[in-house]
């Protein structure tokens, strides 16, 4: 046992331990930094089944019954996010699950209005603009958008002045019209001023007769609050609509739906090209492509609107009841390829293009499951989970001490390190990735206690095997580790595979469980390689283990091994009590003290005798 031969193992053990320490300190440091500089917390965030709240699982489908695509699902999440935010709920978590599920998690109880709003269908519609006005006290921030042909003909560019005018006159127009219209429209049931809609209903969606006094009155008192979000989302297609834009800055009276969004076949954001030449102006626009039916209808609409007074020359794109864009018609567009230009940034053009493209397909949301968990029940479940975990941990600790004696303390220390790592990682993921610990996740962690302790058992048993083969303790630790590592990697690999498949494919609770199971499997490998094995290497050099202390758990005598080292030979163990059984045992002992080769030879001879 020359010193130079053991040094590399000790060195690498120390390196591993330092590396592990660096990981733990690094993670702690990152989280500490996060707590002071950002929105990190010292504990993992809890899912609703542990903190109380409402979890709604929705299935998104196109209204024609087809499943939605991944991009549409993202758009659906965006739509739902706006709806939930509109209801003033803070900290709602909206995530996709599987191929067509969306999970909406809201802390606390959800009122009926929010619930209905969440379930409403989403669809993109085109409506003509009757009136536009600033909503509330805030000054309207004119988007200054306009629609023109994709090839950018005559009216390109200089419409900024028009746009400004449109914004400024909007308020006037509203009051002015409300004074004029009833008089001009005297023929239509003037007595019935209380009615919101004219009687009979005009057949032309552009007919000014839609603007009844009652409607104008309602418009005047209309404010862009969250309360009307549900109403506008469920508005009738064939009636005018009073609504706001997404920012809540502008409010509109819109005509009935003239075109539905499904005529859009594509929408992309692109840089505006210089008229008739090559190169770009550096401004962003959204280019839309429509199908044949859409081209025809849009052509008619654009012919009608082009050249009218603002705001009557505007055309609104309405998604989920809200105006996402209301550009001015700057040309007759007959080819079904309009482009919206305005003060876009690259990002805002992209957002609008996505809204138009994916919002074009009407989507409906059906509630698959809804769960309201009271906060006391959640707290109870968490307490129960923690209690179960502690009891489980305690039992494992007792069993390891019982089976592996002093070595059991290494199991306990390793489990403690695994617990610290798991906790830090969960906290980290909860901060960076929005992970939330659910009850199923807690179950995953508790189950992992057993799986983690498994690796130690595999390792310890391998060391014992090596000792039984007659290796010295240091060699046994190294040899046992080589064999155990392969087994641990293979079996943990299988476990990780199960966790990943479950995480990717399954929905609901399963995801949380799979996540912690996968995470703890990785932690298991880290702990075994960076803590348990290095500690074992160092421990093997202490007197307790090298001296074969009786309760060390690796006492070679107890394992029936013979120390084959250079320095000393162990006295054969002779049974103190002379029972026949013990004598037989010591004979076995003697057999085992032979070298492997000798034993094998003896075995091949002995096998014949016995049979």
């Amino acid at each position: 046992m020359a010193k130079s031969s053991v040094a590399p193992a000790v060195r690498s053990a120390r390196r591993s331990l330092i590396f592990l320490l660096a990981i733990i300190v690094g993670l702690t440091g990152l989280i500490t930094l996060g707590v002071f500089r950002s929105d990190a917390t010292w504990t993992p965030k809890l899912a609703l089944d542990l903190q109380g709240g409402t979890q709604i699982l929705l299935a998104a489908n196109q209204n024609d019954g087809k499943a939605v695509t991944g991009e549409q699902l993202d758009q659906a999440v965006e739509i739902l996010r706006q709806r939930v935010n509109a209801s003033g709920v803070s900290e709602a978590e909206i995530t996709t699950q599987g191929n067509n599920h969306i999970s909406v998690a809201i802390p606390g109880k959800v009122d009926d209005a929010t619930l209905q709003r969440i379930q409403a269908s989403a669809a993109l519609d085109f409506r003509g603009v009757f009136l536009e006005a600033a909503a509330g006290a805030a000054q309207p921030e004119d988007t200054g958008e306009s629609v023109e042909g994709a090839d950018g003909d005559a009216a390109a560019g200089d419409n900024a002045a028009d746009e400004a005018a449109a914004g400024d006159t909007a308020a006037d127009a509203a009051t002015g019209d409300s004074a004029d219209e009833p008089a001009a429209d005297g023929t239509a049931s003037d007595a019935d001023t209380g009615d919101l809609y004219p009687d009979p209903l005009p057949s032309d969606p552009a007919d000014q007769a839609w603007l009844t006094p009652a409607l104008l009155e309602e418009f005047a008192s209309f404010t862009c609050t969250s309360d009307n979000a549900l109403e506008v989302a469920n508005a009738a297609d064939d009636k005018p609509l009073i609504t706001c834009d997404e920012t809540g800055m502008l409010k509109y009276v819109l005509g009935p739906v003239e075109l539905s969004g499904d005529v859009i076949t594509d929408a992309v954001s692109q840089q505006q090209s210089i008229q008739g030449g090559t190169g770009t102006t550096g401004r962003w626009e959204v280019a839309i492509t429509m199908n044949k039916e859409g081209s025809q209808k849009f052509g008619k609409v654009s012919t009608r609107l082009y050249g009218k007074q603002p705001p009557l020359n505007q055309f609104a794109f309405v998604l989920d009841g809200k105006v996402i864009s209301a550009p001015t018609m700057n040309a007759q567009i007959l080819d079904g390829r309009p482009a919206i230009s305005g003060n876009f940034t690259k990002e805002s053009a992209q957002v609008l293009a996505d809204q138009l493209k994916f919002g074009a397909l009407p989507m409906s949301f059906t509630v698959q499951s809804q769960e309201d968990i009271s906060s006391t029940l959640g707290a109870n479940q968490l307490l129960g989970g923690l209690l179960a975990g502690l009891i489980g941990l305690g039992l494992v600790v007792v069993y390891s001490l019982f089976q592996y004696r002093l070595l059991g303390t290494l199991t306990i220390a390793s489990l403690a390190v695994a617990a610290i790592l798991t906790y830090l990682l969960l906290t980290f993921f909860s901060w960076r990735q929005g992970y939330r610990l659910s009850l199923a996740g807690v179950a995953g962690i508790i189950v992992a206690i057993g799986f983690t302790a498994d690796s130690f058992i595999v390792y310890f048993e391998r060391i014992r095997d090596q000792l039984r083969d007659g290796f010295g303790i240091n060699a046994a630790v190294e040899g046992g580790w080589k064999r155990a590592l392969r087994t641990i990697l293979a079996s943990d690999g299988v476990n990780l595979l199960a966790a990943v498949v479950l995480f990717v494919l399954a929905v609901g609770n399963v995801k949380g469980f799979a996540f912690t199971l996968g995470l703890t499997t990785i932690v298991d490998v880290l702990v075994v390689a960076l803590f348990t094995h290095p500690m074992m290497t160092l421990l093997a050099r202490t007197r307790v283990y090298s001296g074969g202390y009786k309760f060390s758990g690796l006492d070679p005598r107890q394992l029936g091994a013979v120390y084959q080292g250079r320095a000393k030979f162990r006295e054969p163990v002779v049974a103190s009590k002379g029972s026949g059984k013990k004598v037989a045992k010591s004979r076995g002992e003697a057999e085992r003290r032979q070298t492997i080769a000798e034993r094998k030879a003896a075995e091949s001879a002995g096998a014949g005798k016995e049979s």
Partner: protein
Amino acid sequence: MARSFAEFGNALYTGEKSIDFVGRRKLWYTISAVLLIIAVVGPFLRGGFQLGIEFTGGSQFQVHVANSQDRDPDVAAKAVAETLPGSAPRISVLGQNEVRVQTEALDDAQNKAVTEALAKGYGVDADEVTYSFIGPVWGQDITKQAIIALVVFILLAALVMAIYFRTWKMSLAAMLALFHDLIITAGVYGLAGFEVTPAAMIGFLTILGYSLYDTVVVFDKIRENTSPGELSDSRTYSEAVNLAVNQTLVRSINTSVVALLPVASILFVGAGLLGAGTLRDISLALFIGILAGAYSTIFVASPAYAHLRVGEREIKERDERILRQRAKQVESDLVEAAPAS
């Protein structure tokens, strides 16, 4: 105990003590076959699986009452009867302070009415009443996803194991054991009349991982013992496999106990203190699955693997050679022994 257990391990390791897992495979196969038949037929004789509300659709209320409070199910029955005449609710008392009421799917107004009636009946705040609604297709959705996950996992795991062990026969034997475990666990569930919930399905899916995990550890030792360098000339292939199983037996027992302890503690806390729910359902399936997994690795997977291999020409020839040698040895021993006596 620990001492004797370690010594038991020693004896198994050297082959001094050996349990014939592989040789008596017909016995184990028969036991497993009987268990499987019971697991498949039993639940149907009993009237099929009892599916949780998640699979059938409906509404569920859970009332959380303080520890000392009365949890008379009749209060719930009365509350539901008043607000929903003609409804046949399923009412159960769970854990130490929960009452659960399951009804058909309700609309928002009905839900509100029942929540209030229950809160009033038990004298608790309406916030203490948990409400869940499960649409009729939710169960189909999760079942579909779970089956897809199951199939994908089995295919991937079979492939990974075949590559790792470099023989498809180990992979096949492991899969046999896996199906064995799944069927038996499902059978116990059905026989005992436990409710099949999504949480129970999580448990089933986790058994996949555990069953293979356990098998991989033992197969790793089998592979080691039957590798060309290690395979002793004195043992037939089956005997070498059997020795590997014996050598890992102490480990198998220890790991199974260690895996079972936390699961048992969830089961105890989940069922005892919290009543039915995620924790109990996951741990119940796992508890049965881990037991089945430990059994099947030793009694099904390993003998099945040996069984699959012994027919191979090379191994057959080798085995025959060893047996011939052994017979010769016996003869010469007899010859030696005869003059002495």
